[in-house]
């Protein structure tokens, strides 16, 4: 039975992949370009040079961490759409520490900056968690509100107390070079933060699969009432999962500041907080799945950017394809053409 299911799933994935490729080709044809040529550019953009290959991981890094956060939250039944806001709160916290904390420098400062960022993002997510766990207020709406509050507050911060006094641009001062995350592979942008992200994936996998804490988190997500009846605290677990979830999204923001931007400014998330929700869903909330899907998404983005530069094919194709993939995954029953869709509650 299990084997049949696995075969069926693999077949479904293959079918969805095929449909995505065909749709991509059709979209390129609509642009009046040759799909074969475009595909060559697509792959040359990804694998052409070593530094462009490394760029995939640079783009994937924030997505891995935000999606990881979403996956933890979803596993516990906490529908966190607030990764976008938590990302910025983390970026803000990290920047403040990296710029203004006196007395420490070097690695200690980096660790401290990222940890404070993590805690800030975690606390930001806690607002929604407490409202849900205590008062049963929809976390979906609360996290969306919190996103806008965080984004607008960042807009205020980089124009007032955090603004670089030397310039007229809404951005913070440059972070001193000893507090930046180092480049790991010379002559690319492959930075240490990417390794941190991969370690986090492994850690979360261990936490969720091999420990009691992870078991309790999953139990609350599977059946709140049953978990409660068996002595697992629903409140504690929702709060914990929200804290971790917000923390990882915030870590993504902190790393983006310390490794890529070297200063705080608006729009640095490039919407990865919203993309993360879909990535976590495609990955089935599995940590290593999140890693794979994030890298795949980033690869598509890098490849599509190269198509856009060279052939003028809009890179929004990637958004369309991701949207279609999610719709296809949700609507599997539509493509298996069964007259009576299997519906599970």
């Amino acid at each position, binding site marked *: 039975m299990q084997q049949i299911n696995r075969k069926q799933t693999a077949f479904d994935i293959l079918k969805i992949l095929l449909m995505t490729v065909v749709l991509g080709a059709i979209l390129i044809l609509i642009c009046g370009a040759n799909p074969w040529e475009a595909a060559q550019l697509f792959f040359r953009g990804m694998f052409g040079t070593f530094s462009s290959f490394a760029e995939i991981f640079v783009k994937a890094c924030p997505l891995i961490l935000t999606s990881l956060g979403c996956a933890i939250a979803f596993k516990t039944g906490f529908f966190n759409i607030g990764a976008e806001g938590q990302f910025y709160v983390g970026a803000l916290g990290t920047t403040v520490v990296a710029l203004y904390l006196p007395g420490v420098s070097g690695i200690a400062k980096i660790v401290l900056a990222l940890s404070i960022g993590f805690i800030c993002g975690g606390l930001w997510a806690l607002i929604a968690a407490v409202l849900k766990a205590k008062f049963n207020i929809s976390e*979906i709406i609360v996290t969306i509100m919190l996103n806008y509050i965080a984004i607008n507050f960042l807009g205020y911060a980089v124009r007032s107390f955090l603004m670089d006094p030397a310039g007229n641009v809404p951005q913070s001062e440059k972070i001193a070079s000893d507090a930046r995350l180092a480049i790991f592979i010379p002559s690319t942008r492959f930075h240490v933060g990417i390794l941190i992200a991969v370690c986090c994936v492994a850690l979360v996998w261990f936490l969720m699969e091999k420990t009691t804490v992870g078991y309790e988190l999953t139990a609350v997500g599977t059946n709140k009432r049953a978990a409660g009846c068996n002595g697992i605290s629903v409140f504690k677990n929702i709060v914990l999962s929200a804290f971790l979830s917000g923390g990882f999204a915030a870590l993504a923001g902190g790393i983006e500041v310390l490794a890529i931007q070297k200063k705080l400014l608006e729009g640095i998330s490039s919407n990865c907080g919203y993309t993360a929700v879909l990535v976590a869903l495609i990955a089935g909330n599995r940590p290593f799945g999140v890693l794979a899907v994030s890298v795949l998404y980033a690869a598509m983005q890098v490849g599509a950017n190269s198509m856009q530069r060279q052939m003028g094919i809009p890179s929004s194709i990637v958004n369309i394809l991701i949207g279609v993939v*999610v719709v296809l995954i949700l*609507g599997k029953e539509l493509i298996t053409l069964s007259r009576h*869709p299997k*519906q599970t509650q």
Partner: protein
Amino acid sequence: MLQRILSIGFLTTFLSAAVRLAMPLMYAGLGETISEKSGLLNIGMEGVMISGAFFSFVGAWFSGSLLVGLLSGMLGGIMVSALHALLTIRLAKDQSVTGLAVNMLMLGVTSFLYKLLSTGQSYQQVGTLPTLALPLLSKIPLIGEAFFNRDLLTYVLYLLLLLVWLFYRKTDLGLSFMSIGENPRAAASAGIPVHRYQWIVMLLNGLLGGVGGAYLVLVQLGVFTVEMTSGRGYIALATVILGRYTPFGMFGAALLFGAANALQIRLQTIGVSISPYLLNILPYAITLVAMLMAIGKNNQPEALGKPYIKGSR
């Protein structure tokens, strides 16, 4: 300074701008109110609005007629909601995931199509709806200018608000539509066709959300830009909650969001320096506080966001 703010002239232009900026939210918020009352949460409202905006622009551009533009904007919105309905009603999928997927899909589709359309042409402008001053009413000091010297779509909205309010308050059918948002199983056993009603509200949701997006193009700006809705679909969700799931409540909430927006513009023009970003936070914070204050009163439909599966217990 305070005197300049409290002058009639300032208040009139401020209120007028508030209503103008709130109108897309009001259409989208009304559509969302209707669907949420029947238990369907459409987080994809952002996608509905951007689709409405894009297709209204395309319709108006190619036909040269604003009416065709408006109709194609409606159709654009309905298409998106129909996809959401297919996944959430027919296949009983998670409404939040579906909504976000729909948003991403439509942001991609509209910017893709717009880039195809605009190659070679730099600036494309369509006409905008003229304002029609209502006789007598528009002469009322302060509010006359703001509420009754507007375009046709605004007046249609007033009428719709009234009709929707009457529908839920005074008719049996309205009660049926509300009941499927509270307890769909009980409603079904009372002979109400739950899925058919849910389809109806989702299509209305798309139609009104589409008009909300079209309003940006056909009344406010006359152009389409990529991602021009910039989060208005999400704000519309907030107006519904802040408005406690009633049409007139939603009207007030949308007006508040419009006012916060308008205030920042007006204050800047008279040289008062409050950060617009801090002002922008205000309506969101108010929404959160309103949600806190509503604890215990619970006006949210009981079955909101939960899929109804025929024959399940």
